[in-house]
């Protein structure tokens, strides 16, 4: 069963490389933000697959934490682009 997880991991890394093309090239800043957010969500699933390959069940906690960090980062970038500042101090 470990070979199945290995194949899935390789497919996910290949799709990340496809998204990197749009992150480097996309005209303007919005394309780049969308591509970075997508690479972040794919990294969460990649962490789970690696946890199954190396047989360490602790990787699921790290995946949960990184999903939350990625979500907050995307919302912060959207708020900054609309208003010009993040917090009114």
């Amino acid at each position, binding site marked *: *069963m470990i070979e*199945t997880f290995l194949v*899935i991991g390789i*497919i*996910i890394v290949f*799709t*990340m490389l*496809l*998204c990197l*093309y*749009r992150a480097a090239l996309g*005209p*303007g800043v*919005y*394309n780049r*933000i*969308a*591509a970075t*957010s*997508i690479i972040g*969500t*794919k990294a*969460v*699933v990649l962490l*789970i697959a690696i946890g*199954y390959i190396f047989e360490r*069940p602790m990787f*699921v*906690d790290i*995946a*949960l934490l990184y*999903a*939350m960090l990625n*979500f907050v980062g*995307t*919302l912060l*970038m*959207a*708020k900054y*682009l*609309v208003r010009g500042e993040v917090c009114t101090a």
Partner: protein
Amino acid sequence: MHSIDLIATVLMAFGAFFMFTGALGLLRLPDFYTRLHATGKCDTLGEVLLIVGCMVYQGWSFLTIKLFFLMLFIFIANPVATHAIMKAAYVTGVKPWKKGEERR
């Protein structure tokens, strides 16, 4: 048990197929709004299917509950992030693409 392995492999294969389609949509589609359609939806569903496959493979244990909470969080958080980025682009003034124009 051989049949549970087969069901889990089929679910994970569908999940990987949807994620690949989402990334392909990022390359092919002609405009920013349509690219968000491809990634925000196909990507989320692909991840949910993949995590359901891992849950089926694991059986009944504590790891299944952690994976279930991760799936719930991704299911609710990804559409909210997509909507936030799209609203920021619309308010700032990015123009949508109609049929017949050139690629941007």
